């Protein structure tokens, strides 16, 4: 089949199936045949830019679902979904105090699937806070922070803080009563810092009260700065999982 000289008879279904999974086209994309034997399974993971985040082999005990509960993966997957829906929302949302609220209303009523995208983004944001927190609990209670994984635990704590900040900066954007006053409460808390409280409050608001400066500041943090910083720490987090001896194993 793969040689390109088709016989006289038309190929059977099995031959076509085999050509699809082991033929020249498949191999030109993935380099190796379909991963149905051990060698190709290992090579497929090792040589694929997306899959090589993983080691090509993993300890049996470390990947039990009742051990990890998939929480790290779910957090990452939620982050990806938030990125995709967030980009779609950015097509319609303008961070201006005169337009923001109307844009959200348009998303809900005029834009095709706009309501669905906003809902996924909103519930996904809550979901990510929960899964990241639970992931931290799982890692703690299984003792997976212990040496040599100390630093990755620290990175994880940073990621938790970044997740909270991402969620909170997005909270202001709909520019309704709920977001306005939630952010008022939140920034007042920050402004209560000893000694530098007033400066922190001004830094958070970009002004003495919540207004256009605040909105553009939080929008920029929400769609660019924080996602980039989070991605940076996320890469370190994934990388260190492998560098620090792979996923921890139960006895």
């Amino acid at each position, binding site marked *: 089949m793969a040689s390109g000289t088709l016989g006289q008879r038309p190929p059977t279904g099995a031959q076509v199936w085999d050509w699809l999974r082991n033929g020249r086209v498949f191999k030109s994309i993935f380099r190796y045949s379909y991963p149905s034997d051990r060698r190709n399974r290992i090579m497929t993971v090792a040589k694929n830019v997306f899959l090589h985040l993983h080691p090509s*082999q993993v300890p049996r005990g470390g990947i039990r679902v009742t051990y990890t509960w998939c929480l790290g993966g779910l957090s990452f997957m939620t982050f990806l979904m938030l990125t995709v829906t967030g980009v779609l929302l950015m097509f319609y949302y303008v961070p201006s105090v005169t337009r923001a609220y109307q844009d959200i209303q348009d998303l809900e009523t005029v834009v095709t699937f706009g309501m669905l995208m906003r809902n996924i983004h909103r519930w996904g944001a809550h979901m990510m806070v929960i899964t990241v927190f639970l992931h931290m609990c799982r890692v703690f209670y299984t003792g997976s922070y212990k040496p040599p994984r100390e630093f990755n*635990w620290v990175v994880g704590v940073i990621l938790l803080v970044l997740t909270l900040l991402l969620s909170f900066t997005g909270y202001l954007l709909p520019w309704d009563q709920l977001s306005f006053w939630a952010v008022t409460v939140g920034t007042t808390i920050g402004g209560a810092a000893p000694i530098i409280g007033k400066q922190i409050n001004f830094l958070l608001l970009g002004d003495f009260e919540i207004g256009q400066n605040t909105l553009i500041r939080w929008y920029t943090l929400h769609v660019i700065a924080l996602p980039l910083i989070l991605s940076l720490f996320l890469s370190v987090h994934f990388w260190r999982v492998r560098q620090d001896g792979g996923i921890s*194993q139960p006895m």
Partner: protein
Amino acid sequence: MSGSEAGVKPALISVRPTTAESKWAGKECPHCKKDISAGENAVLCPKCYTPHHKDCWTTHGNVCALDQTPANIMERAGRAAAPAVDGAPVGTPAPVKPAAEAPAPPKAAPVKAAAVPVAAAVPAAKPAAGGGASSARAMRSAARRAQAQLTTWPHLLMPEFLSAVLLMIGLTVMAWFVNAPLEEHSNPNHTPNPSKAPWYFLNLQELLLHMHPGLAGVVIPTIIIVLLMAIPYVDITSDDTGVWFSGAQGKKVFWISTVYTFLWAWALILADEFVGVRAVIENAIPVLKISWLSEIVTQTMVPTAIMWAVAVGLYISIAHLKPTVRDVMIAYFTAFVIAWILLALVGSAFRGPAMVLYWPWNMPPRIA
């Protein structure tokens, strides 16, 4: 063949549980001169493959009784007991074949696997300079490590893929039926009652009701973050990695801390709500009616002292278990988790207008 030569590390060997079928079952252990019977743990000398009792090996200085080859026993979780995976027989030294060859027979598979990614990741498997024997040993050691390993495809990728699909379906279904809230256009001149932060900050907002805002909103969260980051630098044992709660004692500590924190958090919230700690102290000591003095004493010092007392009390209530460092970590981390969730819950579901406590089913509507 001494392990100290040229800085070559002693080999790592794994514990092998003996079964009736084991090749070494019934052979004599050269240390204690007794037979190795089924059910006992054995190790094989990495050079001459002579079987020894595992305990004899360690009590005789981790060397072979016949040729004095040093080797340390790998104390790795799930390693010895795990059956061979994907049809790989135990510890068969096999020559490495060129990667271009056709699909590998099962015997050669683990060695190949080891040759590609594992060898790079495991420092102990470094081939020693010039030592044919030691590189063969490193190869065997790497092969043994590969035993309990599953290929990532499909053993890890499939659960990941499925959980991702379930997440997408679940989130989409929820988003289809439940709409995100959108209230009136923001109005700086009209404050809704109550005004609440997002739910994940309501624990901080709850603390705000009971103490100085700087303490509740800035100092305590900062301390929590720093303490969280410090955990692995205080609890530096790693022999119990991967065990939920590090065993039965840790689980007991978890439950004690859960109940303790739950009761104390509720007690303190209710006490402050219905007794009014600040008012009581100010009435008892009239000089504290000066507001800046009251801020320091009733809003900062008293809450700090109470939190310290509750924290010390937590230690006292687990002291009878003779807790390890890890147990103490479990106690305090659990206290944080329970308190954090409980306070967020109280803030979300139990605080009504003017942040007064209500039963959730009795909650008056929010005055928007």
